[in-house]
């Protein structure tokens, strides 16, 4: 690891000035479970590491049923599933947060860090996209909001400009009869990188028998996590049954542009998109029916 300076910012403005002055050579530190590994392996270098965990907005969870969830960008995963109200309202987020690494990783790793790290296989991002989450960014020009679906621009690349950083992520309030789920495929039970990951959010009709609207997001099948637009749109008005879930799975494959690597071939990944989409839709619908 390179030698670097360390600053623990305590306000958003302080972090912005440190990052703006540091430019490419400054790095934001949240849980460090990606950053410290990358610095140690010299995949990234830094002259300045800016710890953002002591900034109040970054470490807060605020939730109201009427207004939705604001999740501080540095809140570690264990606090997401440990908050009973948030866990009940956003089960898809709980699925993601409890899959990232093991228990000791979840004590540090944040969903904000998962998003900013912009891995194509990130387990947090599909859930955020499925929930139509928005990234709240601060920078030298003030604040701006970007939909999470547009936040990642390539492997390890994001819309963040010099001096900008992620303050929080907002998720809309959940309507009646809605639910979400995230699942990934890995060759073992714990501690691995997704071969494919799929997140889905659904809202059902008042009688809970058909799908009013849906959003499906895929991981590890393109340079960034992607929305399965055609499958998502097609679901509106369809009966909430197995035949619909299977057909949506076929349509979701159209959004996948997978590569072949040591974790799986492109063909295998396409197949998994179909299977996982069917399964997460079933899980999301059953949660929506129970809500």
């Amino acid at each position, binding site marked *: 690891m390179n*030698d670097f300076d360390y600053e*623990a910012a305590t306000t958003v403005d302080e972090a912005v000035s440190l990052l703006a002055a540091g430019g490419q050579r400054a790095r934001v530190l949240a849980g460090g479970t990606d950053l410290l590994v990358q610095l*140690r392996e010299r995949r990234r270098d830094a002259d300045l590491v800016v710890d953002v965990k002591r900034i109040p907005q970054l470490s807060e969870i605020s939730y109201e049923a009427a207004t939705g969830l604001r999740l501080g960008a540095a809140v570690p995963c264990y606090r997401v599933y440990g908050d009973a109200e948030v866990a009940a309202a956003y089960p898809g987020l709980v699925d993601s947060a409890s899959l990232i690494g093991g228990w*000791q990783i979840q004590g*540090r790793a944040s969903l904000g860090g998962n998003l900013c790290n912009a891995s194509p296989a990130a387990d947090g991002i599909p859930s955020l996209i499925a929930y139509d989450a928005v990234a709240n960014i601060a920078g030298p020009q003030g604040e701006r909001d970007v939909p999470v679906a547009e936040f990642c621009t390539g492997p390890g690349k994001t819309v963040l400009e010099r001096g900008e950083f992620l303050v929080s992520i907002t998720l809309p309030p959940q309507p009646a009869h809605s639910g979400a789920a995230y699942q990934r495929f890995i060759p073992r039970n714990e501690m691995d990188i997704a071969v494919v990951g799929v997140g889905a959010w659904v809202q059902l009709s008042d009688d809970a028998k058909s799908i009013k609207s849906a959003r499906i997001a895929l991981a590890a099948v393109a340079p960034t996590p992607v929305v399965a637009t055609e499958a998502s749109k097609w679901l509106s008005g369809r009966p909430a049954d197995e035949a619909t879930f299977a057909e949506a799975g076929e349509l979701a494959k159209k959004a996948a542009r997978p590569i072949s690597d040591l974790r799986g071939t492109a063909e295998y990944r396409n197949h998994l998109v179909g299977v996982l989409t069917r399964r997460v839709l079933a899980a999301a619908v059953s949660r929506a029916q129970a809500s």
Partner: protein
Amino acid sequence: MSHVQAPEASVRPTKNVHVELTVNGEPREFLCAPRESLLDVLRNRLGLTGAKEGCNNGNCGACAVILNGVPVNSCLVLGVEAAGAEVETVEGLAKGSHLHPLQQCFLEDAALQCGICTPGFLVSAKALLDRNPDPSEEEIRLHLAGNLCRCTGYDKIVRAVQDAAKANT
């Protein structure tokens, strides 16, 4: 396969930082460079060599410590981040010569061979029992999934944790 040579570590002089924290209930302080991990600091600056360096990238759990009540891999925490924190290491488990029930059960159940992973397992298991004194086998396996052991095949470790839970109640 061609390997790209990493550039030499820069020799920018960074200032050592003074950090105060609590370790196993006692106030401690140290000076460290910002790049030193909490694991480096515990081992090299505070003389607490219980936490082990296995993989140094968060996968093996041999360096697990409890930071403000939360189990973490100390290789993925900077020493400077621990300012003001309460840290519990494996050295804090035994009270004098009186072993913690987990330590006693690991010994009696032969839940270790080479022993490198053992401090991490003990710390993770303690964090689990602190929160949930009567975990199911599945809960034990889930909470120890971030700790790797290449000798025992895990069954004896899981059994030792179950026995320690029984001994505690």
